[in-house]
């Protein structure tokens, strides 16, 4: 008759069956990866359990999500809960950093979340892949152009909830964008026009800092699409450099 006891965290979140099945060593490895980040020691000092972070937290008002819970679990080193949090819980954070400006210890729970997200992406958790699938358009844009948003991304199919004014804006978009009164703003596929040289430099940064690798693990298809564009632009750039050299000579 006794109900099975499932460990819960937050207000009422059970640890998922999946998490319990993951080998202990693997969970420890993941949490250690979070804790070994150079920012970790700057983001977590101690905790009075006072609740100021959670009280200020916007996500907490709609989700059963609490920065205090994250801080507490790190201080307890509760591997199961921390590991479980990295699949769903941490994605509720709005990254507003109100917790940081309020905490009497000057902890930065929002910062802890961003480290956890990074680790969740690096390790390509299934939940992270699912979560970021609809985000692929943004990743494509930012990785290839250095802009995160462009006018043509706001397609009616994706934004009906933004209402009739928004849909009107999309009509004859090209001409309307050209009616923006400064030159680099007159583009449709990017927020502003980014020079080729800039993009090339950015690709180099992504390469050197392992961002492309991260992406490959996360979404191989998206990675391929992005790399095609990157390589095409790099070829264009090389051709241009050659042209310029010839012209100078």
């Amino acid at each position: 008759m006794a109900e099975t006891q499932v460990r819960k965290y937050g207000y009422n979140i059970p640890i998922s069956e999946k998490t319990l099945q993951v080998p202990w060593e693997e969970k420890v490895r993941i949490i250690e990866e979070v804790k070994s980040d150079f920012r970790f020691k700057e983001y977590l000092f101690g905790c009075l359990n006072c609740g100021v972070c959670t009280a200020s937290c916007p996500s907490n008002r709609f989700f059963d999500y609490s920065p205090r819970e994250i801080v507490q679990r790190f201080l307890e080193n509760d591997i199961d809960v921390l590991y479980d949090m990295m699949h769903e819980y941490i994605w509720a954070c709005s990254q507003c950093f109100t917790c940081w400006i309020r905490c009497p210890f000057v902890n930065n729970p929002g910062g802890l979340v961003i480290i956890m997200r990074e680790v969740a992406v690096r390790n390509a958790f299934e939940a992270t892949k699912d979560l970021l699938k609809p985000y692929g358009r943004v990743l494509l844009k930012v990785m290839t152009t250095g802009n995160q948003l462009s006018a043509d991304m706001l397609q009616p199919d994706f934004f009906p909830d933004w209402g009739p004014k928004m849909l009107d804006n999309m009509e004859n978009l090209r001409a309307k964008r050209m009616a923006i009164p400064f030159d680099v703003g007159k583009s449709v596929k990017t927020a502003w026009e980014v020079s080729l040289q800039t993009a090339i430099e950015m690709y180099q940064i992504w390469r050197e800092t392992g961002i492309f690798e991260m992406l490959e693990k996360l979404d191989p298809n998206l990675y391929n699409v992005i790399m095609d564009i990157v390589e095409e632009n790099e070829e264009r750039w090389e051709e241009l450099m050659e042209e310029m050299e010839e012209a100078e000579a």
Partner: protein
Amino acid sequence: MGHKSKSPYLMYPEKEPFPILNKHSHYDHLFEEMYELEEKGEILVFRITEEYRPKYVYTRTGRIKVIPTNKLWHHKSCGQCGNIPGYPASIFWFMNKFGLDYLNEPHQTSCTAWNYHGSGTSNPVALAAVWLRNMHQAWKTGYYPLIHCGTSFGSYKETREQLIFNKELREAVKPILKKLGRLTEDGRIVIPQEIVHYSEWVHAMRDEIADLYEKEGKPKGIDVSNVRVAIHNACHTWKMIADDYPYDPEVYNGQRPAASTAVIKRLGAQVVDYSTWYDCCGFGFRHILTEREFTRSFAIQRKLKVIAEEIKADVMITHDTGCTTTFEKNQWIGKAHGMYYPIAVMSDVMFSALACGAHPFKVVQLYWNCSNYEPLLEKMGITNWRELKKEWEDAVRYISELEKQGKYDELLEFFKEYDLYEPYSKTSDGFKLRKSATSDLPLFKS
């Protein structure tokens, strides 16, 4: 103004202007460290010298922050340029009005931090490299970077702190910058003396803006004295690295961030307090794009509804890309569940430009704005907004026709008049067509 510590970048006023926090807070200490790093030859501090016409504001700790007002390098925001183009346009418009020098270059990426906070697909080294690369470009041109986006501003502030306090990070990022040719000739990293948000520029220029309102806005019949304003402070400007954002004794005794509030008050509009002033907008980075259920729930119930019920404001003033977008786009859908609280939403600089007589559609580009801005225009005395809107629509039609006919030369001529400045004249390249990674318009293809 004020007295200095041993670091030339750290200044405090003679007399404390308001109940300040501890002067020896962690963040102010950064300026001492920065100075030491410069002395050691690791970094080069991009200084705000006289040519940038510095103005001074207080931060939360009472530190004096130097705000350059002239010769600025505009570091744009993808959200603004992408869907609130009137935002940067209003900034440029003011700079033209004040006769200030600036650059609006294509040689910049976004900070990429929106993606980072939204998806986690980046890391501090990459963010630092992107930041330093952009700052180096500004330094090379000799124009001081002015950051349009709140998230860029917040993220850059944090990255700067990480860089200055972490040797490992500096060492990780240096080789990358070297490959890109983004170090100084003697191999140093370029770090700007202050990271400056456009709202700080507006804050520093509030007297000039108010003068312009008197001189050009009022004679046009514009009057903002009856406008009730709800201020929304953007999280990434004042909550990220909280000690590096303006506070002022005149704004809530220096107890709340001063930017935006100060300029709106200076214009004579009524700033009204409401009970969720400190809440964020619900943007959530990832949420605004792929999980708007949360964003709209938050924006409507925590902000729009509260403002409508408590203070019946005419306009909501923000100073960041994300907040403006969130509030203006997520009003209409409230109709689905009887939660429609229409209100005008725009940034401080857009509102100020309107007050000073800027064209609501050609300059402030309200056409793209999904909020209920029309009643506000009426209340401000811009009663001819319908005609002004038609003017803009005519311009769009004209552009459309020229483009269809392939008359690019005529189009260029048209833009010479229409644009806030002549195309290409204000980039570091001077007047020459450039190679673009992104442009899709034949006009701008090389």
